[in-house]
């Protein structure tokens, strides 16, 4: 059974169809890449799955049960976590407190010393060891991304949605970020990735879905997608696949 499935999901914003009757499935343990030009509906798709937006039509199922229309905190507690394209750590809280929010309210809530121990482990796992007491507002852009990821991981998700995690990173940071994502994958976490850095997406994903103007126009393994004429066309024939 698919971990996540979307059946004919649509979302309009005042007449604009941001997501048009999209159907897709994510299998347990899989890494699915979602690509498409700016404005093609990728973030909206994440907002629909995580409950930040409610679809106009269609059904979203998680672990077989419909979650369409559930509020975001309930969807989180069922095991779907996300990061934000423009990272949104809780700036007025310390890095550790950011993580404690996810630990306290996620799928497998922890409290007291267990939560504290786990928060140290999570800080270390994303490369923020020693920064737990720092207010999130004093962290660098890359460290805020790490923190956003740690906060999401703290909810113990079965499915993690990463929205342009590598946007704005330098080559060194990009390779660190890829290492982080690979480690999550190795732990058996199911991932859906949205990335603008196409080569990175093709390298990390086992399967790719391509969106264009809200519609799914292609789906398949990375090698096939890189050669798909429709995909090559929307990317102006320039996929820099190494």
């Amino acid at each position, binding site marked *: 059974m698919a971990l996540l499935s979307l059946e004919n999901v649509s979302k309009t914003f005042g007449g604009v169809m941001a997501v048009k009757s999209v159907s897709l499935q994510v299998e347990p343990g899989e890494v699915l890449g979602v690509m498409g030009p700016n404005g093609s509906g990728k973030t909206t798709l994440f907002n629909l799955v*995580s*409950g*930040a937006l409610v679809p106009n039509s269609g059904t979203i199922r998680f672990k077989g049960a419909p979650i369409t229309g559930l*509020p*975001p*905190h*309930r969807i*989180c*507690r069922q095991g779907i*976590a*996300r990061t*934000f394209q423009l990272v*949104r*750590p*809780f*700036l*007025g*809280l310390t890095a550790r*407190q950011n993580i*404690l*929010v*996810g630990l*306290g*309210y*996620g*799928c497998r*809530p922890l*409290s007291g010393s267990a939560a504290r121990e786990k928060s140290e482990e999570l800080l270390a796992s994303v490369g923020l060891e020693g920064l737990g007491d720092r207010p999130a507002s004093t962290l660098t852009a890359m460290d805020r991304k790490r923190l956003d990821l740690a*906060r*999401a991981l*703290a*909810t113990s998700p079965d499915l993690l949605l990463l929205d342009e995690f590598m946007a704005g990173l330098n080559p060194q940071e990009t390779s660190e970020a890829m290492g982080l994502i690979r480690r999550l994958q190795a732990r058996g976490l199911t991932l859906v990735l949205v990335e603008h850095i196409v080569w990175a997406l093709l390298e990390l994903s086992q399967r790719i879905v391509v969106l264009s103007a809200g519609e799914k126009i292609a789906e398949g393994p990375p090698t096939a997608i890189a050669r798909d004429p429709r995909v090559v066309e929307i990317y102006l024939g320039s996929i820099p696949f190494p």
Partner: protein
Amino acid sequence: MLWALLGLGAGFTAIPLFTESDYLLNLGVQLFLAVALAQSWNVLGGFTGQITLGHAAFFGLGALVTRTLWGNGVGILLAIIPGILVCIAFSLLIGGLAFRLRGDYFAIGTLALAEMLRIIVGNLLPGISTIPSTALTNYALLPRYYLGLALAALVVGVAAALARSRIGLGMQAIREDEAAAAASGVGVLGHKLLALVISTGLAGFAGGVFAYYHASYYPQYPFSPLWSFEAILMSFIGGVGTVHGPVLGALFYTILKEYLAVRLVEIHLLIFGTLFILIVLLLPGGLVEVWTRFRRLVHRGS
């Protein structure tokens, strides 16, 4: 730092053992009411980030209910509880609606609601409210002082417990970013309503103490928006969103206001308004921030 608050509480408990000065006891009651107003506002406005300008509505409602029951022969402690319950019920009634408003609209909406209530009360009960004559002849300051102290201790205790709890952290996450909080599993509306219930219930208790303390006042007086503004002023001066800030702010405000009122009569609001703007612009952490910065300096020096 919690020890400082406990020490302060012990100090205020002991004061009547050393002095029978009416002046000091009256100042004490005013201080306790100020602490309660500021700290109860801080739970909703500071921890949860829902800047309400309607806090006085609940101070007024608590005073109204408690005063009415007490005037009709119900014991004061028994009369305070329905005041709190009416505040909680009323806040739940308006909460669902008010929380559809965000930011400035929430602030203005809560002010409008509170003003409506004040005007209604002013029209329905235009006469002055005087405590029962038996209570007047036996009027003693000491029970008012200790009830006020108990109120302040409860409100600060609730805020301190909240600040250390998971739910308090969830409230702070909502203040920082609602969408990110919801995505982390925090039920936004539920937490906002809980903060509202705690905040308004405590304001209702403060209103009850006010009703017990003041011999005579117009029933609409505790509904005055000035009480809301003072609560906000004190929280920001001391350090909004912290446990110590509103206590420090209330101490500072009450003492300075008393000092200024003796000398300059009405100008204190102007002074506090200016101070408020300076603090918001230059020192968003309030007086508590001055203290932490000072301590950091001392640590570095030693």
